[in-house]
């Protein structure tokens, strides 16, 4: 496994409480301690590149979306030239929040509801009501402009950073983002987007998705009866610099061997259980294409390769920009984690994507969003993406079996880290390395 260690910060600005002592243990207090949470609010979130929204949430000039992270509210606005700007979402007069939720600014004006002060979409002030009532020093145009955040776009997402001195986005996402370029996340759009509120620290919740080790016990249906005899291996785990991580198929074959061995029946069953279990990564369209070749492949042929071949043909015919390089196909069924809180799990022309944020200023609650993404034919017009809804973790109408199984462990873990009988996590060296890698990077932020 490739592990790229960064030197620990020399001369740290502060001592981080409950710091990581090695890559194998995570102190329990990191998941509930108020002081630790406040350090994250002060030294992680205002300093780190983070996804504020997907680009298709604001397709047209004047479209806006509010991004909330802890105490901060940022408004992200599509400009007339289709670039994106982001501002601290607060009136320069008496602090009223300017924009709420999402919407359009058809008049090209951000208006404060309290006294009617206005700003253009680029953040410059355009109107102060009865300005002669103010001392000129209070109306300096530069000082009246909305406070801007850094914005860059990548992966069909709008990323913001509140730190004006932050390094460029692609530098911060290195070396992980090129693997996602290879599968074409840039061309993926929302199939559905839902969220839930989880009674667990944001890190604890997202750590449910850092490994495939939990599949045997949490998702028994995905082992097709192998149970505890489920073989180890087949997966390759990599901890990258900058806190990012990856797991993917250990095989670099180009034969489309992305499903468990076992011929047509097993391949089709696996495709179907993914589609039915989460309506993501494998969609109904893919299942139909795979089933279409069922009777066209002889016993001696590799069914998976034939099925993937059929999908590639279908994509070409439909104008879907499916990526099929060996590097891309190796990541199908795998995952890239982008520090601090964002995931892509690509497969074929689809992907799952996750974002985790603290919720309600409480270290023990988080807001967990799930996107099912897919590639549409290239001719499709851009459609504004909307959150379908917020659903309880046990809502069987709105969450498939697979996410409900994952949710079910999170609150129980949060109860567990509160136990006096518990000190720290003990992690598998290889399979769970992404977890400690994330925490080690977090400590670097908190110490700076």
């Amino acid at each position, binding site marked *: 496994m490739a592990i790229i260690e960064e030197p620990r910060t020399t001369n740290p600005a502060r001592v981080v409480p409950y710091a990581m002592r090695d890559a194998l243990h995570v102190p329990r207090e990191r998941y509930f301690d108020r002081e630790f949470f406040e350090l994250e609010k002060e030294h992680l979130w205002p300093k780190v590149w983070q996804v504020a929204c997907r680009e298709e949430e604001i397709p047209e000039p004047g479209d806006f979306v509010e991004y909330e992270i802890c105490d901060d509210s940022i408004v992200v606005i599509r400009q007339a030239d289709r670039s994106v700007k982001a501002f601290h979402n607060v009136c320069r007069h008496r602090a009223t929040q300017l924009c709420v939720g999402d*919407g*359009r*600014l*058809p*008049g*090209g*004006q951000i*208006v404060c*509801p309290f006294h*009617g002060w*206005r700003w253009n979409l680029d953040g410059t002030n355009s109107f102060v009501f009865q300005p002669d009532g103010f001392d000129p020093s209070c109306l300096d145009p530069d000082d009246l402009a909305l406070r801007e955040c850094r914005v860059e776009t990548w992966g069909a997402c709008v990323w913001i950073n509140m730190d004006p001195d932050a390094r460029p986005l692609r530098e911060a996402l290195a070396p992980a983002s090129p693997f996602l370029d290879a599968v074409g996340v840039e061309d993926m759009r929302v199939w559905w987007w839902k969220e839930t509120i989880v009674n667990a620290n944001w890190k604890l919740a997202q750590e449910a998705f850092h490994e495939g080790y939990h599949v045997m016990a949490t998702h028994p249906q995905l082992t097709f009866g192998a149970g505890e005899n489920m073989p180890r291996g087949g997966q390759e785990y990599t901890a990258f610099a900058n806190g990012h991580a990856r797991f993917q198929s250990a095989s670099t074959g180009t034969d489309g061997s992305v499903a468990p061995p076992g011929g047509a029946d097993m391949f089709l069953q696996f495709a179907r259980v993914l589609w039915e279990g989460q309506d993501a990564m494998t969609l109904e369209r893919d299942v139909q294409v795979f089933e279409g070749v069922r009777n066209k492949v002889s016993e001696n042929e590799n069914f998976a390769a034939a099925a993937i071949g059929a999908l590639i043909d279908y994509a070409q015919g439909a104008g879907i920009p499916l990526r099929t390089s060996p590097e891309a196909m190796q990541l199908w069924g795998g995952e890239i984690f982008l520090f601090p809180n964002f995931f892509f799990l690509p497969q074929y022309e689809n992907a799952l994507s996750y974002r985790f944020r603290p919720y309600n200023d409480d270290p023990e609650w988080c807001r967990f969003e799930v996107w099912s993404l897919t590639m549409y034919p290239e001719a499709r017009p851009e459609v504004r993406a909307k959150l379908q809804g917020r659903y309880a973790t046990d809502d069987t109408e709105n969450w498939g079996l697979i996410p409900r199984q994952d949710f079910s462990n999170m609150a129980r873990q949060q109860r567990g880290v509160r136990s006096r009988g518990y000190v720290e996590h003990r992690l598998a060296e290889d399979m769970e390395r992404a977890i400690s890698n994330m925490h080690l990077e977090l400590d670097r932020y908190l110490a700076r």
Partner: protein
Amino acid sequence: MAPEPRGPVVHVVPIGIDLDLEPGETIIESAWRHGYDWPTICYGQAQCTACHVEVLSGAEHLAPVEAEERDALDHRLSVTGIADPTRIRLACRARATGEVTVRKVGVVAPDET
């Protein structure tokens, strides 16, 4: 001679202008596109109701009131001085499908602003 086919048009009195509405466009957005100054405080958020119009004719050619506009008309419109509140629509939400005439005082032409 056959009349030229035309899209939705909103006649505005007393200023006496005709606004053509592009697909998806509201009355106030068409006015802005043509450079008119139209009374508003919130600039299109269905909050202030200052852009409201009285529909004089062609109400059937306006797209139905949706939730945001309904909420504003029911709860934030001051009806003092309004003869018939059922004829009021918000220019920042109303879209037309045909010919409509509305009354709106305070619309100012580009060269007068």
